[in-house]
């Protein structure tokens, strides 16, 4: 399957690279009445889909290739988003409602006198970007270290990842936690000096998202194509066999989990300036489950499929929540059931199967510590 996948991957990268050039061109260089004009709201919407696609690639790296069905990747995405949001809040400066040059509006409103330590340094862009990768990465390192060492696998692992994101969801809701409570962070003005309202900034953010998706895909592709990647898939298929071969299975899982969390954080950081808000609802357990659905729909263990699934499902979501809002969730649930039953390899698997005659061996949806030979 890999030769075929490589060709599809190449096409995928080419399409994204073209989009990174053409979409801003059409958005900025055409007149609004032209048939080729892409309005700013659409540029923003497409950029949002690309951020979801990065999250899907990140999730596919651990789920498709290592059998870790994380239902908490929304937390890594949201933490990256919050780190970016904090930078954007500090950029508002004295232009806020209360015109406080240091404190964001919600802190003035809560009658806080000084900036909490967690917010220090976030006025400096490189520091904020460091936090975008560091915070999700370290969380994944700590969480994974405990979970994988204790050999928590399968549904149990999925459940504790849900619990993790739910804990963040609850915590970020609290006003005195210091991140804007249920309102979250919003009213952003500009990013490294460029107004977020301008069409050019929106176009640039779209291109940045497309490039980030290309890089995330290439990084994930390099990882799964290496000997480490082969070992990772072997861990997914027969974990205890790998232990008896002398592999430190927990380290293999941990590396993939941390890389995946960092990619999810980057996706969240690109997402926030495009949607203009980050609030605790991004931590909602349902968000993480939805991300798993994108991956399943597109094709688990293919990377490209995960990205396509994210874009396709979100496109459908945008359309149906507009046209038939009350039926969307049923549609999403139905889609998941259909894909699970009839398309174990997702949409991409369907496309590949047409041309492949090689037997496809089913991979388990989640790796469960098998009892070796009993």
């Amino acid at each position: 399957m890999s030769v075929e996948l490589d060709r599809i991957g190449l096409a995928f990268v080419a399409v994204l690279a073209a989009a990174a050039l053409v979409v801003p061109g059409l958005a900025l260089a055409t007149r609004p009445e032209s048939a080729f004009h892409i309005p700013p709201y659409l540029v923003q919407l497409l950029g949002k889909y690309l951020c979801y696609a990065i999250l899907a690639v990140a999730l596919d790296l651990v789920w498709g290739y290592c059998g870790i069905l994380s239902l908490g990747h929304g937390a890594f995405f949201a933490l990256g988003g919050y780190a970016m949001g904090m930078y954007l809040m500090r950029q508002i400066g004295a232009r806020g409602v209360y015109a406080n040059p240091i404190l964001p509006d919600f802190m003035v409103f809560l009658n806080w006198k000084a900036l909490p330590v967690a917010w220090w340094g976030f006025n400096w862009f490189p520091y904020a970007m460091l936090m975008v990768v560091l915070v999700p990465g370290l969380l994944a390192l700590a969480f994974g270290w405990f979970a994988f060492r204790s050999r928590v696998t399968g549904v149990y692992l999925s459940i504790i990842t849900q619990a993790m994101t739910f804990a963040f969801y609850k915590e970020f809701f609290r006003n005195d936690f210091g991140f804007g409570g249920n309102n979250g962070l919003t009213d952003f003005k500009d990013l490294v000096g460029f107004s977020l309202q301008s069409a050019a900034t929106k176009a640039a953010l779209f291109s940045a998202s497309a490039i980030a998706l290309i890089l995330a895909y290439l990084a994930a592709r390099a990882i799964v194509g290496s000997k480490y990647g082969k070992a990772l898939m072997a861990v997914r298929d027969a974990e205890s066999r790998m232990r008896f071969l002398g592999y430190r299975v927990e380290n293999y899982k941990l590396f993939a989990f941390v890389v995946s969390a960092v990619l999810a954080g980057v996706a969240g950081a690109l997402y926030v300036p495009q949607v203009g808000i980050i609030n605790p609802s991004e931590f909602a357990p349902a968000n993480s489950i939805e991300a798993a659905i994108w991956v399943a729909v597109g094709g688990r263990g293919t990377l490209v499929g995960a990205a396509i699934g994210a874009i396709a499902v979100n496109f459908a979501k945008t359309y149906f929540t507009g046209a038939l809002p009350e039926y969307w969730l049923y549609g999403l649930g139905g889609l998941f059931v259909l894909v699970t039953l009839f398309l174990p390899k997702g949409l991409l698997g369907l496309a590949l199967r047409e041309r492949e005659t090689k037997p496809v061996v089913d991979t388990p949806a989640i790796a469960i510590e098998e009892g070796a030979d009993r």
Partner: protein
Amino acid sequence: MSEAENPILTSSLLYLDGISVSFDGYKALRGLSLVLEPGEMRAIIGPNGAGKTTMMDVITGKTRPDEGDALFDGRYDLTKLDEAEIATLGIGRKFQKPTVFENHSVEDNLLLAAKAPRSVFAGLLGREDLKVRETIDRILVTTRLKEHRARLAGSLSHGQKQWLEIGMLLAQDPKLLLVDEPVAGMTDAETEATAELLRAIACDHSVVVVEHDMGFVRELGVKVTVMHEGAVLAEGALDQVSADPRVVEVYLGR
């Protein structure tokens, strides 16, 4: 690993003394003792539930014994090490049910098993090793899988999977091989070929074979240990132990 390493206490490769294991009150092993010399090949037989697989679990670190000593190479305390550490010391294991990586090619199965650095970092940045490549080519010939090297292991026949798994053990190049029922479900011709393969392996490795098939054990022609109810019942040449009235009773029922 240092706490598990002792000065050399015995010249035996594997030394099990008074090993007991119980699961929820069920005693799987009761004071099992077994000594294996370097270069030796040993067949272990015994009825279902005799504790053969549990013994392998203890040796490979999957199960911790409640009491008893397990020494490898005269100085490593196996009861203090985990699976990966024990595998790195040089103990390889073949499961009863063929356990190969079904979604990997035959070649990649051998590559993953081959003796090479096991760290994440080595896996990400390591270059292809010519020596490993040669080893893989050699093993593909030994296990008669040369024509199938690019095939997915999941699409191999049952017998081929068994050989692939034995090939993976060879690639791992351990000092001691534990082989659990290698001929279960094989045709007579395959069984014969497997016996030949194991004898070839035993030339430069120590091997423990657990087997039900008496014909196969006879073909191996090595010292036999009979296990029963978690302990050793008899030990010696096959003809000698099969003449033992206690062994006859265990096998034929009372």
